[in-house]
């Protein structure tokens, strides 16, 4: 029955120019007046799908129907005109303007033709705030209000522009528990007034609380639509977190020896007051690959940032071979034998305006074997670059080629070639194979195993379940800034267990988690 569906996305496929398929033949049907969850792990394709519903992207193929009418959503303006509003993860607010001013931006009420009618703006804000029970302070500057209120403003902004269908993109990612409860009350209220809400999330317990139906995405495909009340968390978890193909990685059993990395009691509260690291302690030993599994946003990024001084914790210690590495310069951290394959290779990993060679030697430009007194020993540098290009099978025209011309996989190989080759004692690999082709992925994984078996300690952070389960020798699962589980031997793991820990349904007892500290 077409009439009961206010949004229908049929057979949506989205393939990016680099060949990656973010969505494949996805169907989504949302009924009027329901709270519909769009769920999945990172990379499942949820936000891509919603970007298309909001006109920020266009599907490669498929149809979108809104209110029984086939639509071509070419821009957000068009989507808004069809009654669709989106509350983004990164708030679209202007910090120094007041709440009321943000509300009416682009549709400012005027008095005497020239001036802002701030009274009217405040009135409008209050009117909508009261109508929807979303309490905001119209005169407060956005930069001064708490995150929860900022989100309410975003919702009100969508509503005042006539949205009847609201897309909320991971709304609780930035909220405290208190604020989350409040948000849910507001959403139920909106639903009562006939609004339709699409709720993107991976937080299972929240979804179970307030949604009517849920569509689960995994690997760009839909795993089906389910009625929330008919399902249990374990079943959902199995649908969300699971591997269609299990990629086995060939490796000998690890023989870990001394502790290289010692993390104790890391605590970190971010600028919004959210606790991102809660008593995190772990040991990483020579010759082992320790994986950090978990849905993104549970503290993994913060942990990695602390290890490379891209951020500093509120308290706690981190030592490499007995020496502190918190708060010191990156040069010193590298001198202690730490290498980082960063999550965002374009931001930190490479200088995109440079050549491959220039990118390969950035961490060793002052090294003795590459310099002859004040000058570079170009022969040595060329030899080293060629060797690295060969050893890491970087597909390129020459070492003098601009690095940005390479494919994603080859760029990552350049990063990896550099980070693995400077005689590291500890390698931190953060999403090392994200967004790259199969060949490069296999190569990098093999290399990580090889290096670990030769005695290097590897910390592998990955949201890719296959990778983190197959590549790691042991792993921890992070949830809510804490370590939820530690598994000394990954060969015993199954997907269901992983899902339950990753989604916060289960937590190991402290003494079991404590086994990750070997000293």
């Amino acid at each position, binding site marked *: 029955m077409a009439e009961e569906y206010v949004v229908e996305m049929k057979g949506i496929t989205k393939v990016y120019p680099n060949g990656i398929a973010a969505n494949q033949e996805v169907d989504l049907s949302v009924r009027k007046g329901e709270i519909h969850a769009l769920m999945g792990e990172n990379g499942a394709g949820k936000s891509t799908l919603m970007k298309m519903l909001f006109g920020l992207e266009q599907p490669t193929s498929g149809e979108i129907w809104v209110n029984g009418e086939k639509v071509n959503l070419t821009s957000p303006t068009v989507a808004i005109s069809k009654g669709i509003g989106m509350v983004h993860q990164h708030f679209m607010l202007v910090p120094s303007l007041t709440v009321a001013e943000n509300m009416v931006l682009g549709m400012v009420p005027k008095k005497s033709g020239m001036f802002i009618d701030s009274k009217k703006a405040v009135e409008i804000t209050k009117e909508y705030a009261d109508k929807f029970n979303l309490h905001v302070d119209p005169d407060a500057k956005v930069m001064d209000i708490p995150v929860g209120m900022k989100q309410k403003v975003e919702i009100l902004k969508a509503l005042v522009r006539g949205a009847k269908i609201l897309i909320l993109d991971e709304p609780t990612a930035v909220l405290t528990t208190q604020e989350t409860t409040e948000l849910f009350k507001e959403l139920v209220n909106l639903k009562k007034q006939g609004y339709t809400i699409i709720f993107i999330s991976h937080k299972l317990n929240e979804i179970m609380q307030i949604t009517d139906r849920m569509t689960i995405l995994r690997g760009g495909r839909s795993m089906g639509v389910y009625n929330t009340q008919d399902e249990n968390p374990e079943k959902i978890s199995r649908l969300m977190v699971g591997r269609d193909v299990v990629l086995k990685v060939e490796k000998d059993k690890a023989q870990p020896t001394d502790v290289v990395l010692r993390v104790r009691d890391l605590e970190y509260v971010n600028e919004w007051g959210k606790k991102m690291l809660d008593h995190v302690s772990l040991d990483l030993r020579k010759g082992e690959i320790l994986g950090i599994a978990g849905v993104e946003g549970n503290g993994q990024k913060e942990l990695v940032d602390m290890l490379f001084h891209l951020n500093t914790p509120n308290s706690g210690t981190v030592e490499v071979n007995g020496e502190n590495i918190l708060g010191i310069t990156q040069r010193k951290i590298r001198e202690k034998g730490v290498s980082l394959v960063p999550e965002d290779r374009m931001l930190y990993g490479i*200088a995109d305006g440079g050549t491959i060679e220039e990118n390969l030697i950035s961490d060793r430009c002052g090294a003795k074997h590459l310099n002859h007194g004040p000058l570079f020993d170009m022969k040595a540098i060329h030899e080293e670059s060629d060797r690295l290009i060969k050893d890491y099978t970087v597909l390129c025209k020459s070492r003098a080629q601009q690095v940005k011309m390479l494919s994603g996989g080859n760029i990552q190989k350049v990063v990896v070639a550099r980070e693995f080759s400077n005689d590291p004692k500890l390698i931190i690999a953060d999403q090392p194979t994200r967004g790259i082709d199969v060949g490069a992925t296999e190569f990098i994984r093999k290399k990580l195993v090889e290096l670990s078996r030769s005695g290097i300690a590897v910390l592998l952070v990955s949201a890719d379940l296959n990778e983190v389960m197959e590549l790691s020798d042991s792993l921890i699962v992070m949830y809510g800034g804490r370590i939820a589980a530690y598994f000394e031997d990954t060969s015993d793991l199954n997907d269901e267990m992983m899902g339950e820990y990753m989604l916060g349904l289960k937590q190991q007892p402290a003494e079991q988690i404590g086994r990750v500290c070997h000293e």
Partner: protein
Amino acid sequence: MNKRRSLIFSIVRGLAAILIALAVATLLIYICAEGDTAADKGAQTLSALHQLLVGPAFRSNGALSTKNLCDILAAMIPITFTGLATCVMFSANQFNLGAEGGIMLGAFTSALCAIYLPLPGGILPLVSVLAGAAIVAAMMLIPAVLKTRLGVSEMVCSLMLNYVVMYIIKYLLNSHLADKSKGQIQTYEFQSQSLIPQMVNNGSKLSWGFAIALAFVVLTALFMYRTRWGYAIRMIGINKDFAMYSGIKVGGVIVLSQVLGGMLAGMGGGLEMLGRYNTYSWSALPGYGWTGITVAILAGNNPIFVPLAAFFMAYLDKGCSLMSTYSNVPSQLIDIIQAVIFLFFAAEQFLSHYRQKLVVKSTQEEMKLKEAAASAAEGSAK
């Protein structure tokens, strides 16, 4: 897009920018031209253009004038140094505009040494020029350190310093150091052993400073592309975060880039002063710093291309002064030409459609090659 196409594109863009500038210049020359009819004015314009484009190197009978050429080479000296200074600083993304005040201070310091230091020939010019370089290098610490420690804009800071330097020199020039016996404001004469010897003896002022300038072009190029500090400067200019993450000391290198820029500008001032003059009389900012920026932009921040760009600017400058002498066109035309070239050359979207076409063409060719290779492989496999 492959390297050859890239190069062709850059050259085409450069030529287009220059042509547009010349078109603007022609228009302005026409406006200035004397004559009552359009034909008269047209003729005047053509003759002025001839002076601009041909005059600097050739005599009226069409023969190459070595003296004129030497004059141009001599004029290249100061702007080569400010060009190099700007290349170094811009490569680190530091918009330090202090080369202007720097070259003036360097010239002044060298002049003072040349007048008052009791040193023998050979040593005196060396010490004088080095003193000029050192003082300006030290001065650049101010904007550099303020930038790295406090985040103060190096641009505003260096601009202010230009004026401070100018006024202090003016003061000293007017009061204590002036040779009151002379008609115009100038210092005493330099000691004869302080002067840099002339390279050519044909009436032009081409001193050995020119050879030193070329030497420094090579040194700067070596520094930027063959040493770890030049490398660090360039990486910071491309991506500061990447440099930090790779272990490069970003703050220190930023300071280094500005100090080196100061050193080069100061050295240029000293060489210019002792190679061409025998008394110091600059009481205003000489303008070499701004031309240096144009030179750096034309050279794409690459020291190796600086002499070419500097020659080009010096040539045009001479052309403009010839025009002002013979054709009633004020010599400031060079500023307008510079600004126009500048604007178009640095405009990334200028001729972007053309660049798109080249990229598409390249991609198509690459795909054809791939297909050919694939079918060849197939053919041989059968």
